[in-house]
């Protein structure tokens, strides 16, 4: 056995004729925090439920901690789970909810109490044991659900969009707390989310999924900085796509402008190629020497607090491109609507994708 704790091998899942998962293979290491990220309907929840045994896959195997659990029912597997809806038992007190799983494990009553108290402290609700779930806020309820899931010290923690039902402020706070708790406990964790910010800030590794297949697996930095597919590039963060053609192995042609791009080497035989760049990577320096310089006019500006998102019409291009300028840039270069700008495209921030991307 390698050091992977959870091994997913060639998983398929069909609902009637619809393939929700297509040949998914994935290794998750012990103690790792992995996020399944993707739009709704991409199969991320289906994959999580297959790991839990709640919806057993049609084909493929799942190995957990060296044991083949592929065909086991949920109660024969080793995991704790937290749902978006909290799924707390409304008629039981917070303490009884947390102790729910302990009752069946021949844990002494005194030890149960001790464990519940410990968990209440961990989630920062030491005095809420006698309350009922309905008396707590959404964020507090989700913490209780988390405590209930980890009470029995499972080897695997599954989180199914745990933060989606909460409002923004609570979500940010709890994001941090869950991550801290996970680090402290060292429990292997899989979280499903459609919120890229959540995935980027919490995960050790992100699995980006779409249409039942894995698009890319990588650290948050890798996913953001080096998207492997146009889908990942668009789903995580914002990306401009511009049709271009490859001139030689270091140069491309964008709307009549010649642009240095080392990635062109791998695209030399492609006919249709798209150049991609993130809005925040477009720079204005107004210095003399610049290799990839394009002239553009500002057609609209949208103030978004710490930065301005502007639409630019670039010479020789049909589509507008989006650029984010910091407030400092706006002030330093005195940018306003209708201005002519000289844009710099740093060559190390350029991405090329085969085919046309809309």
């Amino acid at each position, binding site marked *: 056995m390698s050091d992977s704790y959870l091994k997913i091998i060639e998983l398929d899942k069909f609902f009637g004729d619809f393939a929700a998962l297509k040949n998914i293979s994935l290794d998750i290491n012990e103690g790792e925090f992995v996020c399944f990220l993707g739009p709704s309907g991409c199969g991320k929840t289906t994959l999580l439920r297959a790991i839990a*045994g709640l919806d057993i896959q049609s084909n493929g195997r799942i190995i957990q901690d060296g044991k083949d659990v592929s065909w086991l029912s949920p*109660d024969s*597997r080793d995991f704790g789970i937290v749902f978006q809806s909290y799924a707390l038992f409304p008629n039981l007190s917070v303490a009884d909810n947390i102790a*729910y*799983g302990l009752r*069946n494990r021949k844990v002494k009553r005194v030890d149960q109490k001790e464990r519940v108290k410990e968990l209440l402290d961990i989630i920062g609700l030491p005095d809420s044991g006698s309350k*009922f*779930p309905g008396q707590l806020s959404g964020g507090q309820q989700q913490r209780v659900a988390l405590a*209930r899931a980890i009470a*029995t010290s499972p080897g695997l923690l599954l989180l199914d969009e745990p933060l989606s039902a909460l409002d923004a402020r609570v979500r940010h706070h709890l994001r941090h707390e869950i991550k801290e708790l996970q680090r402290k406990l060292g429990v292997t964790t899989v979280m499903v989310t459609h919120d890229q910010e959540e995935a980027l800030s919490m995960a050790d590794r992100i699995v980006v999924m779409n249409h039942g297949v894995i698009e890319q697996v990588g650290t948050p930095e890798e996913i953001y900085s080096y998207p492997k597919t146009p889908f990942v590039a668009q789903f995580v963060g914002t990306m401009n796509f511009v049709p271009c053609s490859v001139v030689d192995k270091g140069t491309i042609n964008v709307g009549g402008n010649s642009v240095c791009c080392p990635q062109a080497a791998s695209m030399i035989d492609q006919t249709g190629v798209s150049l991609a760049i993130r809005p925040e990577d477009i720079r204005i320096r107004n210095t003399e020497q610049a290799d990839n310089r394009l002239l553009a006019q500002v057609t609209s500006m949208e103030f978004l607090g710490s930065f301005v998102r502007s639409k630019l019409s670039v010479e020789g291009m049909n589509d507008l491109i989006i650029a984010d300028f910091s407030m400092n840039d706006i002030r330093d270069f005195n940018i306003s609507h209708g201005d002519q700008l000289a844009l710099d495209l740093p060559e190390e921030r350029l991405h090329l994708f085969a085919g046309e991307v809309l």
Partner: protein
Amino acid sequence: MSIFENLPVSLTQETVLNTPKATLSRDQILQASGLLIASIILLITLVLPLYTILSKSVEDQQGGFIGLANYIDYFSTPALSMSISHTLTIAFITTFIVIGLALLTAYALTRTCMPGRGFFKVFLMAPIFAPSLLPAISLVYLFGNQGVLKGLMFGETIYGPIGIVIGLAFWCFPHALMILVTALSNTDARLYESAKVLRTSGFRTFMTITLPSIKYGLISASFVVFTLVITDFGVPKVIGGQYNMLATDIYKQVIGQQNFSMGAVVSVVLLLPALFAFAIDRWVQRKQVALLSARAAPLIPKKNPVKDWTMLALCLPVPIIILTVLGMAVYASLVSFWPYNLSLSFANYQFDLMDGGGWEAYYNSLEMACWTALIGTLFIFYNAYLVEKIKGLKTLRMLYHLAAMIPLAVPGMVLGLAYVFFFNAPNNPLNFVYGTMAILVICTVAHYYTVCHLTAVTALKQIDNEFEAVSASLKIPFYVTFWRVIMPVSLPALLEIGSYLFMNAMTTVSAVVFIYSADTMLASVAVLNMDDAGDIAPAAAMGVLIMGTCILAKLIHWVFSHYLLARTQRWRAGT
């Protein structure tokens, strides 16, 4: 690759599921066997008996197969087939009257500030507590040959279509009212505000907003009343005179002439319109989903003295009639000897001095109703839980859900007769339950299964679907969660089902009239028998006693849900 490549995806998937790779856990085995047992019980107590009705209708008296001869016989005997048009005529007239009155009063209750709405709500529901025999008996006292208001009949007789329509309208009214009140309550105040802002007239608002929003409620209420009318047996039995109806025909054929085959034929004939009404109602129910968005603001009626008092004037006759009819029954039960000795006494309540079963019948009814409520509630709820919440066994669960819908379409008389055919057959190993309390309980649970099942399913749908998943992850068996969480959370629905079963078990006549025995005489049947024997005052007394018991049961239910629930379900406060 393999041969699977050319097969459609669904087929390959099935092949995979059928491979012995997936191991069943103890929970899954328990759930599956539970559902299987329940399905077998439903099959034995519902589907098979109904099948015997069909097969009996194509047999002669000796049990030989004779094809459609019985049906030909039936339709060529005008005295018999006449009942079809009788029944349909009565059903259409009654439905029309009931829906009209119910719509008026429901509108007044929900959309106006009519004075005395609390009083209305209580008394308008009163007929539901009595067996249908009671209003009919009361009508005899009011408009019969020696009736106090006989003059109002202008020479017409109450014994016949007029009496049947009045009696059934009286008895069906609360059912229609409940549906229409619900339909009228589910509305969005914003729609009315928009109409006002756009300066729409009141009439146009009613036609374009109110009516469309209650359309399905109206259709549903119409079919409920229609079905109740064609399947009711109590009213036409008591006051129908020579006017034959399908439900009374079954009784006459079976009890009067011992012609079981013809009874079966009439049953099948009666089943058809009921099935038709049922199918339409189901179809309408399906269309009704999500008419109201979660963001709708409830409509709170504003005071409008002219409208409110007009409504009061229009509606007031309804509770007055209800109180008159029920009051007459109570009064008649207390009068020593109608119409000669009007002094009040409890002489008519000395049931042990009369034929018809005595007080024993009443105690039997109580016992039967308690068992029905207890066993019925647990059985129905537990199986609704399995149908609603377990994974897998999709086909079986769907079949179960479908089978659970059947009783709503099956008239009580038909079900009762089916039980006679099925359980009284000498070669049936279950023959031993015939003539016992058990068969009465089983039959009554089966008779009222649908509404209880739907109540349970609705309650269960409101419970988070992930409770089972959470329990499984915590390695807690599903039945522990069922006991510790699902049951307590669903307590209001359980009480609702229990009291519904209790009241119907107390008042039902139609199904049990064929299967009671000398040892298991029931109060409702006693009302029928005493009325048949001419002991109409004791019949009224027994009817009043049943009504009193049902009102008491409802009060207990009310106290339970208001005070006990408030204390034991502290957790609800926050939600």
